[in-house]
């Protein structure tokens, strides 16, 4: 993508098409829907996709490196459910947090290890680890689907924090977007993610530590999932593990892919996640304002995802190299 710098201002790629669609919906909604273009509503739009956006940032890092992490939602829900369960059982804050954080990192490491060293396809590894994480925590650790945040815990207060009338989730999303941007753009290992995603064999031959990098990406994804889970619990004052069975995972992929991060790896960045999140947020918000029933909302969402994938396929045709190596 970045190799064609200079002349591509008018070339339509998926990112720009989606940006244009987003802008059109935004303008139409601003004029057509009373109450859309108010500061409060716009803050609510950003906020409604903050958690999704953080999950999508983790997914983006993995997808750019030509992988996928199906365990993100399970890690998000189950790690926080485990954490809350321990707090409710009287564990100390530090002890519970340390244990859960090491559990989360361990899952990331195992995912990465199996993909990088055992060379099992990412889709199978993370599918299995998602089931394991959900099944183990649900059956062995927690007693009900939903675990409440204990009264007076800092998560309860976190959900209410606002700066300048903007909820703290928005700032946390922005902070992580900045961190991931800096990582991908300005660190050596961040740049390597693109090379490894574009052509792992060439990257390895060039001397990049391809395998340790893979492990790092899955660990980053797991940690971001845990943070997204904490934010969810902060807002809802509980963690309902039923979310693992929901379509949240597809929404995460939607945000990443619709913004223009190709599933074949090596393409895209934080900007694409932001565009994808903006479209998703605005779309959901306008559909709710118009009062479109949920089944139609899903239809509209999925149609847009399908269109984005088709456009991606046409604009970024699979080259010989991808066809031979296969993507995720």
């Amino acid at each position, binding site marked *: 993508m970045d190799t064609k710098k200079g002349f591509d201002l008018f070339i339509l790629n998926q990112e720009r098409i989606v940006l244009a669609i987003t802008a059109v919906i935004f303008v139409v909604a601003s004029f057509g829907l009373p109450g859309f273009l108010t500061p409060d509503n716009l803050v609510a739009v950003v906020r409604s996709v903050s958690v999704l956006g953080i999950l999508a940032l983790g997914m983006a890092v993995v997808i750019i490196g030509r992988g996928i992490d199906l365990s993100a939602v399970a890690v998000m829900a189950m790690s926080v459910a485990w954490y809350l369960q321990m707090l409710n059982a009287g564990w100390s804050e530090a002890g519970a947090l340390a244990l859960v954080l090491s559990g989360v990192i361990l899952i990331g490491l195992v995912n990465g290890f199996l993909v990088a060293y055992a060379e099992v396809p990412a889709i199978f590894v993370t599918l299995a680890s998602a089931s394991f994480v959900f099944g183990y925590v649900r059956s062995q650790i927690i007693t009900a*689907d939903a675990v*409440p945040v204990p009264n007076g815990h800092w998560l309860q207060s976190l*959900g209410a924090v606002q700066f300048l009338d903007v909820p703290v989730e928005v700032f946390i999303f922005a902070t992580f977007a900045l961190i991931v941007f800096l990582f991908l753009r300005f660190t050596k290992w961040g740049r390597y993610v693109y090379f490894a995603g574009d052509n792992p064999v060439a990257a390895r031959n060039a001397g990049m530590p391809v395998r340790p990098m893979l492990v790092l990406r899955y660990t980053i994804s797991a940690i971001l999932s845990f943070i997204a889970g904490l934010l969810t619990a902060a*807002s809802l*004052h509980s963690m309902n593990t*039923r979310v693992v069975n929901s379509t949240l995972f597809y929404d995460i992929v939607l945000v990443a892919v619709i913004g223009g991060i190709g599933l074949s790896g090596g393409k895209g960045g934080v900007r694409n996640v932001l565009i994808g999140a903006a479209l998703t947020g605005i779309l959901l918000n306008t559909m*709710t304002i118009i009062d479109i029933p949920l089944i139609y909302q899903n239809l509209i969402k999925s149609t847009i995802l399908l269109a984005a994938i088709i456009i991606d396929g046409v604009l970024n045709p699979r080259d010989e190299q991808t066809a031979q190596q296969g993507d995720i």
Partner: protein
Amino acid sequence: MKKCLKMLLAAAMLSTGLAAPSLHAADDPNPAAYAAALKGKRVLLVPMAMGFDLAQGWSAILKREVDAFGGVFETRDPNWSVEAGAQAITEAISSETKPDVLIVMSPDLNSYSKLMKKAQAEGIYVVLVDNPANFKADAYVGGDWTQLGRLEAEAVVKGCGPNSSKKIGLVQGDQVNATSLYQYAGIMEVLEKKYPDFKVVAKPDSNWDATTSRNVTTTMLQQTPDICGIIDFWDGDATGAAAAIREAGKQDSVFLVTTGGGEKTADCDKIADGTYGAVVMTELAQETHNMVAIIKYLLQSGQKPGTASPLIYTLMKATTKENLRPDSCWDLKALQADAEGK
């Protein structure tokens, strides 16, 4: 005197002797018949999932009761998956140790209808709980969801008061589940017939998910800032609507009504702290004991499965801060501890 006593004693002995046959009759034959009908009978509960308050409450009480009559009680946990539930029922029908009574919480009106018919054909009594289905069960034990909607509408109208904006928002579940559709019908019936000046300004779906409920409620409150009441169709996701109201700083101006199984931490604690204005609750213990009575009846009736399909509706009422009592709710932890202790 002594003679007198002797005669009395003799009379007493005689009378006991005479009474002897009736004393043998006091050796009640009924418990033996009861035991013969119930002992070793298998009861299988297949809820939509085991991990939520209703299912855990049912199973705790059912286990206690079934164990008491010498039966075998089992549960299956489909974990909200319709396929897994169907598989559990299929496996139960074809297994060596067939259940005698199958208690099913159906995920929707139609998914399990055929399977449940098959179960009846195999001689298994099928009891539907909580969610109605298009199927002639041997009994339906649970709520009348239209009535539940009516009670919710009454509660929200009362919570709003006559001098309010009279604008109400609904957070529905989805557009396929009977519990959501009937609830909606009940609410609209009351609002249209009794309170035509109350208007429903928005009615998004939460898909039973708390985060979605929060997002749609946030939008609803921004679009119509003077909303006076919201009905969220389940306490499982109403935490989301509550979060949106809390975050908008409208706890005092928006009256939130929801429905649930009356578990302490899920419902009563939240009525007490003002999160929910009113909760239309199912009396879980009553409902489960209705199931127990039906199970005992069916197993002794000798009737063929599918003979009759009575509706055993559970009493429901709206609980608010005003009528909240220490025993308004049941405590899942206590019930589980109790079950484990025994």
